[in-house]
């Protein structure tokens, strides 16, 4: 069990109800933390780290009670913040070594780990320069390094690809996906960039207005529609749609040009290919229709809004 929350409520200053009756039971793995701005994500993270007491309810993370064993808990958790985070006057090695020492590593071990972890994130060449002189991408990498130096069991990542150009984003996501394999740590990724979450996580928690709207596997959240396929052809999709309709399928043309084809009972994809070949149309893309995480997100929130 990675963490467990039971009926957790958090009320600020007697008025703002940031978390309502949150109950979660999550196993190890890579979990996305999603939700609109103001949904309670950062409050949840603070409570899970024991930095903020819950108004009511029990919180257990990595087997520690967050309220009473907060220091022990933070020793096993690494946090990569969204915003600027560095200590003025230190270079990358010093900062990571300091980070390690603050987690209890003896000074020599901390320095060793600092070098290793900076190599892992690809900052070897610049490690002796002061962090305040780094570019955005380099600062992001240092933030990841300082979260890893004490070899945490749980990694909290807040918008890790913020401000990175496409190559930097790719590299960062590669680093992040490597970690569970190498170290067996769990990851909680909080991000608005849903494709990032899809690339890294297998499950997700969706919060809205302090309540849990969904908690479970991403594939469950997305849902697949049976017997419906997304089809793209090189040329005229509408023509294929017409042909398929005559075969008993239902084919809707979307406004990005793709077709959503619903097969008749007992039908399979052969009919689509056969008809396309006959009509001399090239099928360039055919997959079972899956919602993107984005549309699932919107759907779930709208559903909750109406509920």
């Amino acid at each position, binding site marked *: 069990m990675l963490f467990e929350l039971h009926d957790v409520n958090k009320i600020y200053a007697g008025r703002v109800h940031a978390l309502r009756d949150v109950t979660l039971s999550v196993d190890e793995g890579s979990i996305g933390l999603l939700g*609109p*701005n103001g949904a309670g994500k950062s409050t949840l993270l603070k409570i899970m780290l024991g930095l903020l007491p819950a108004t009511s309810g029990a919180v257990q993370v990595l087997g520690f009670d967050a309220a009473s064993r907060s220091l022990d808990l933070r020793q096993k958790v690494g946090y990569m913040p969204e915003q600027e985070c560095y200590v003025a006057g230190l270079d990358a090695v010093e900062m990571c070594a300091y980070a390690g020492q603050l987690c209890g590593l003896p000074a020599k071990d901390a320095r060793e780990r600092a070098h290793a972890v900076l190599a892992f994130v690809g900052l070897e060449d610049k490690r002796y320069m002061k962090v305040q002189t780094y570019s955005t991408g380099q600062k992001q990498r240092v933030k990841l390094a300082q979260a890893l130096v004490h070899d945490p069991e749980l990694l909290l990542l807040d918008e890790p690809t913020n401000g990175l150009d496409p190559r930097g*984003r790719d590299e960062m996501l590669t680093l992040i996906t490597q970690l569970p394999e190498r170290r067996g740590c769990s990851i909680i990724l909080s991000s*608005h960039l849903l494709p990032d979450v899809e690339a890294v996580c297998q499950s997700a928690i969706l919060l809205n207005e302090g309540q849990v709207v969904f908690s479970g596997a991403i594939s469950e959240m997305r849902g697949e529609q049976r017997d419906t396929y997304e089809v793209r052809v090189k040329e005229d999709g509408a023509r294929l749609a017409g042909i398929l309709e005559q075969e008993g399928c239902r084919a809707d043309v979307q406004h990005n040009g793709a077709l959503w084809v619903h097969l008749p009972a007992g039908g399979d994809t052969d009919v689509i290919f056969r008809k396309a070949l006959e009509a001399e149309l090239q*099928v360039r893309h055919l*997959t079972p229709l899956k919602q993107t995480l984005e549309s699932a*997100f919107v759907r779930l929130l709208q559903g909750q809004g109406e509920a």
Partner: protein
Amino acid sequence: MKPRVTAEKVSKWYGKVVGINDFSVEIGPGVTGLLGPNGAGKSTFIKLLVGALRPSKGKLEVLGETVWGNRQLLGRIGYCPEHDGIYEDLTGREFVSAMARLGGLGRDEAQQRADEALERLGLTKARDRLLGEYSKGMRQRAKLAQTLIHDPELLLFDEPLTGCDPLARVQITDLIQALGREGKMVIVSSHILHEIESMTSEIVLLYKGQVLAEGNIYRIREMIDEHPHQIRVECDEPRALGQKLVTSEDIRAIEFPGDGALVVETHDPDGCYPLIPRVALEAGIKIHALTSPDNNLQAVFEYLTQERGPEGVARAGRSEIHAGNAKAPQGARA
């Protein structure tokens, strides 16, 4: 006359440092994505388009006229910059109508247009709250609202979705697409490739101060010879299918990644795409999915901006790839 942006051999230097160099491009109506690594010249280009900078050399025309010093033309351009404004003490409504008045509209008209714009961006309920209280996404939408006020013909958005939660993203993306369909010229600059992909298929890719590629993403992909086209097929019997396909001359390589799929590499997608289903149907193998894993913007970007190996031609300084134009790049295969 259709709205156009034309740049002809434009260069901009800051002292010794080059922002953009010998840059020629033509952008038309609809949504165009502007992308490139850091330092490629995107912000320089945008500043030239909004008249904040003057080209050191070359001709830059927007809507048929030069931008620099052209106040009238600037009224037809809407610009939504990346950084946050500092108007924390104004309400959403006050901010947008103030910007409208700055653009020369009278008080009542400004108010009315402001309200319409806010409505369009879904901010009507929040319009009387202070900007300081808005979330990042809401602030972004307020900035977008004020860009729309004077109904510009050219709209420039710099990282429009920063900090927006998925709901706001969908809203803003839909708005941008709608603006494109209305016939306006919308140029969106972003680092987040899937955002651009969700808005448009037309891109301008900058690299080291020059235009490396422009046009439709998929046409550009087809032109990248060094990286043969990949087709991934998920089916019941990948190896059996592979066996049948391997005899075809169109196929350069077949890979079995091990998850019930095979990946075919080809230099002739037009030959392969019909071939695969035909062979599968003949052999009675059912295809569950057929995709092209690298037929997307991420792959195009990567392939074009990676440094070339020792046997290849250097990327930077290469002649432009104009999609839809038969001009072939250097080192093209027959």
